């Protein structure tokens, strides 16, 4: 972090009026105390949460919609969605892949960038990790909502039962079950342990006994000792090293859900790597959107700077280009295979009933991101946000089209059929976004959105250098 020393003074720990003034002025952070104040301040006082409340009301309504739809779904049956006997998969599967993809970026930022010493990550890794956690949790709900008999979802787990039956290990869905589960558990641990030093900071700075007890319990007795730090660093880096293969495995296994089949458009060896890149792509796009929101909501311009966005834009440019290459590879191999079914499938993608969506997807995922070749676009916050939202839309379209195209246009011509979504499909999609926002707002309200100890480390390093 290239913090530029400004004329800011060490800040007192409390005093709203004073802080309000200082926040106005704080465009650069150069001391540890400034970091503490900036990040933990909002968590410890009661004011300054109007924007939060407005967002929270909207998110809560959508959350009610999400769970209301879920209850209706469980009561009425899976038939409320638009699926049919031919296009048996639909929105929940696309939502699942999309949320998992988003969930990928957090750990990627935390672990890979940590291991590769990309120090700029410190400002955004906490919020990216939280995003991962919530996205994966929501993604985990989707397959359950997709099932015909959701009450038996646990049959996918190998538990001792009177039927003496185990899951079927050859099924990609079982691999998937384990991939999500391990990723979710890992993400929780990684995110929580990364929080511990910051929770201790919050404990120390808390102004009410309630908050002191709350954060104190969560801080697990962190005392900031050198021994603590030593153990922590070793542990954290080990976890990061473990996380990297997980990041790749979770989404390649999601890719295998499709690739380990017999259907045109799914049966492709490129799917696992292309899914991982796609996940990183949509994940970074989501991180950009969240960073922009959090930065605006919590006045963190000093910590999350234009440079962060620029770096992320570069990553997205790389990922978008790889996506384009992957699509092109798919198209080429479909044509080059010479199989009638693959070629028909290819022409269905570009000219069939879903073709307008396919073209939008190509625009969002491959074309729009090319703007980031230009420095001006990379440094323009509105441009970055718009392109990131486009990428998220494009990646969702990619997932739904993977499901729709193959299931709608396969081997037996008599059974070609299209998917028409119902209101409930949309409710679940937007409800899940609302629930995500709801969880994220709670996180932003009660936990430090920026990893204080890592930023402090940076500040210290810069001060000494």
């Amino acid at each position, binding site marked *: 972090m290239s913090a530029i020393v400004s004329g800011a003074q060490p800040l007192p720990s409390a005093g709203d009026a004073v802080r309000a003034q200082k926040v106005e002025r704080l465009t650069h952070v150069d001391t540890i105390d400034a970091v503490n104040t900036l990040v933990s301040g909002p968590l410890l006082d009661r004011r300054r949460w109007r924007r939060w409340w407005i967002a929270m009301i909207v998110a809560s309504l959508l959350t009610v919609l999400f769970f209301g739809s879920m209850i209706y779904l469980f009561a*009425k*049956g*899976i*038939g409320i969605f*638009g*699926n*049919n*006997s*031919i*296009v*048996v*998969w639909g929105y929940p599967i696309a939502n699942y892949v999309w949320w998992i993809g988003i969930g990928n970026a957090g750990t990627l930022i935390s672990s890979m960038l940590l291991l590769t010493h990309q120090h700029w990550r410190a400002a955004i890794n906490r919020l990216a990790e939280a995003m991962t956690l919530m996205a994966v949790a929501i993604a985990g709900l989707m*397959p359950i909502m*997709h*099932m*015909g*008999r*959701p009450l*038996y*979802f646990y*049959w*996918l787990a190998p538990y001792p039962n009177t*039927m003496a*039956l*185990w*899951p*079927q290990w*050859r*099924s*990609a*869905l*079982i691999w998937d*079950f384990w991939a999500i589960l391990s990723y979710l558990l890992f993400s929780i641990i990684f995110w929580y342990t990364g929080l511990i030093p910051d929770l201790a900071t919050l404990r120390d700075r808390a102004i009410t006994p309630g908050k002191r007890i709350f954060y104190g319990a969560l801080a697990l007795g962190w005392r900031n000792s050198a021994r603590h730090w030593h153990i922590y660093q070793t542990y954290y880096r080990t976890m990061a090293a473990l996380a990297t293969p997980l990041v790749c495995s979770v989404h390649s296994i999601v890719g295998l*859900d499709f690739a*380990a*089949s*017999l*259907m045109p458009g799914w049966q492709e060896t490129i799917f696992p790597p292309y899914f991982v890149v796609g996940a990183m792509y949509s994940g970074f796009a989501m991180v950009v959107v969240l960073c922009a929101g959090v930065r605006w909501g919590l006045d963190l311009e000093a910590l999350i700077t234009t440079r962060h966005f620029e770096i992320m834009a570069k990553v997205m440019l790389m990922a978008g280009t790889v996506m384009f290459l992957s699509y092109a590879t798919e198209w080429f191999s479909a044509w080059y295979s010479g199989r*009638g079914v693959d070629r*028909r499938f290819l022409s269905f993608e570009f000219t069939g009933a879903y073709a307008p969506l396919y073209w939008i997807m190509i625009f969002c995922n491959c074309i729009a991101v090319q703007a980031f070749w230009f420095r001006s676009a990379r440094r323009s916050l509105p441009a970055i946000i718009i392109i990131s939202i486009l990428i998220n839309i494009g990646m969702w379209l990619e997932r739904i089209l993977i499901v729709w195209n193959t*299931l709608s246009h*396969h*081997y*037996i*011509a*008599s*059974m*070609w*059929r*299209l998917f*028409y979504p119902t209101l409930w499909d949309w409710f679940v999609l937007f409800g899940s976004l609302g629930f995500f926002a709801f969880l994220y707002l709670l996180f932003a309200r009660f936990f430090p959105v920026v990893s204080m100890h890592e930023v402090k480390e940076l500040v210290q390093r810069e001060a000494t250098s």
Partner: protein
Amino acid sequence: MTDIAARSAAPAPRLEISRRAALKLFTGGMAASLAGCSPPAEKNMPYVDMPEGLVPGEPQYYATALPLGGYGRGVIVKAVDGRPVKVSGNPRHPASLGSTDVFAEAALVELYDPERSRDIRGTQPINGWTEFLGELQQWSGKAKRGEAPLHLVTSTVASPTLLGQIASLKQQYPGTRWFAYDPLGGAEGARSLIPRLDRASVIVCLGADPLGPGPMQIMVSRAFIKGRMPESPGGMSRLYAVESTWTLTGANADHRLTLPPDKIDALAMEIVGRLEGHPGSPLPLDKGARHFVDEMIADLQGAGAGGLLLPGPMLREETVQAVLQSGRRLGAPFDRAATFPAQLRPEPFAAFEEILHSGKVQNLLLLDCNPAFDAAPDAKFAEALKKVPFAVHAGLYDNETADLCRWQLPLSHPLEAWSDLTSADGTVAIVQPLIRPLYDTRSQHEILGFYAGQTAPSGYDTVRQTWKQGAQDAGFEDWWRNALVKGVVSGRSPQFALSAGNTETSQPAPSQPPLDAPADSNSFVALIQPDQTIYDGRFTNNAWLQECPKPLSKGTWTNAVSLAPEDAAALGASDGDVLAISSSAGKIEGPLRIDRGQARGVVGLTLGYGREGAGAIGNGLGYNPRLLSPGSLRNVIRGIQVKKTGRRAPIPSTQMHFSLEGDLRKLLPEVAPGGSLPASGTKPSLFVPPPPRDPYSWAMVIDTAACTGCNACVVACQVENNVPIVGPDEVANGRAMHWLRIDSYDIGTAEEPRHGFEPVPCMQCEKAPCEPVCPVEASVHDTEGLNDQVYNRCVGTRFCQSNCPYKVRRFNWFAYNSGQEYKDLGKDPMPARNNPDVTVRARGVMEKCTYCVQRISGARRDAEKADKPIADGELKTACQEACPTEAISFGNLQDKGSMVNARRADPRHFTLLEELGTRPRTTYLARVRNANPKLAGGSA
């Protein structure tokens, strides 16, 4: 009006209640409610003396017959614990030959339909049979005195007992008149002959649809395919169809020409002239059609006595007679259908309308017919019928006609009553009940018995009386027993009490007036045909038939208005647009279906829809084409205007794509007679199948050349396997549940569209793609090669169907059969229809064809008891059993002599999507097209 009605009209005396009286009433009411607040005590008792031969849970089979269009088809009905659960064909019966059609298969739904008429309905809610009989007695007295002669209206009657009863009623009450009509309308003569397609070598159908639905469908289809087998004596027959709209016959033709109805009529006369050697001036046709006609006639002439020219009911009666007479002279292979003595011939419907509108009808019995819907659905008829003081309707349903009558008498279902039925070919079968009447109903014979003055008529005795020869008939009981067991009557003819002096035998008037006003160029000609799954409207409330896809269009739950693509383009209408069809007499609206291969200027309409009194299932679906010319029973109506309404009502359909472009053509290959498909050869594989662990390896071979697309297998499978009905909205959502579907493909060229059918059950792949993807191992393989679905284990991820290249799996999106049924399908007694050997699936589980695993288990049990292997042909799947053309064979691959092995060695054998390496156990034989080489250039 009768005095009952008069009394009810008088004001009721006002009741003055004192305090004491009120207390008494309270006490009485209290006592009554105490006694009445629990259901009457009923005790379930086990059998003490077991009925002979009855083993609980073991099915029993009874031979009987079911009517269609009045004629019978012999069937064998399976009953479990006294409950009929499956209808199959009776192999001894020539109109069944062991096979069924959709209507016979679906008869059970009618039996268990909760909306059947259960109680007698009069003008008062309290009316019962006693009141009816009281009233009947008065009217019978009047009839006897000649004051109010009885008028009896029926649809086609082919029951000897009923005919006998009508004849004796006529004697008993002089002046009695009997009118009958066939709701299908059209030329009578066209339906009076049985084409022997097995003996014909060239068949020309002029608007005729011998393979289409009807009482002869099964036997004609069987004969047709017999003549199509390459090994048949005269070589494979060639079928030409000249028609205006698509029929099953046209779909199975080698060559098909589309012409509007009057041109077909003229063409028929031209052909007759040329065959008989006095050609007139040829009909003006365009060059391609002329070439077709000339080659067709040359082929027909070349066939000599093997040439068969079939007129359709859309032709004029005179044309039909001319064609039939010419055929008789030239020795064409057809038989005359069953006929009855002239004295037993009814008067036409037109005569009834005449007398009804004259206001002379006072005493009217409408027996098992629905003219207010299927013959004269106009207000004039309704008004006239309402005015009849003693109008009685006896029917299975309280339908449109019943609504206009004073009395509705609930009729017993053919599966509940004694009767007898003649089939179209003249074979008689005794109809025996499978179950006691579910409600307080009477059979047709019992109702006529009431009319004859009997106080407690018994259908059983009446039917036996018909067949008893004299009072001293020693051999009767043995004969009767034998006739019941076999399901076919032999060696006796019915005893009619015919009066010699019965003079009012009238010739059936031509039901279709001669060609009326010449069609002007702006108007269309409407052609009305029976619906391929609903027939004439009798089955409108039958959900199985409603959901059964129409063979060619795959539409369900409604009838469509079909137009040629050029006509649709001229209107600017597309599939599913609602069109308004109007004639001088009426107007209807229906969704458009654009049919490639329909004559231009023709509007294709089908019967059976547009009902308001059918019941919850059938009401409000489609349109009634009879509204275009009510009362006439005409099937060709000229001067029709067609307009777009601007609304849309897409037809719920089970198939959306019909053409086979490029290499998709390999899904349904076709060869010339004697031709073979290129051998695929067995390629080396890493997955060598392990040696079988059981003595059976089940396999199925389906001959697509023999499939006429009749759908009997589809409904048979549905009945056998408790496959649920999902309703029109769910069909439109793409969720029809049929385990067995018949894919219909447009395999013709741009000039000559043709159809091909391909039944697709589960392929039972040896390397099944559905199995490894199931996360909970609900899709597993058994040792006999079946790909089993374990419903209890299924959690509904639907990965199996995603990965099924054949898309044969069906998912229970809702509890279609267990709590979320369509409309009243869950109401008692409907669940009684379920086959007790098959699980009723829950919501959220996947299901699919099992090769009728319950039948396999049953056969295995029997074989093990007898300590011998299951012989080839002993075990039949439901679809195989139903198929009129024996297109489906099923058996053991390990039995070298089995039919499936023989068919697998056929040069026409192919595997669907063989390149995927799934190794299906269900395989196919290619279609055969016996094209005329002289026509092949222009049309193949």
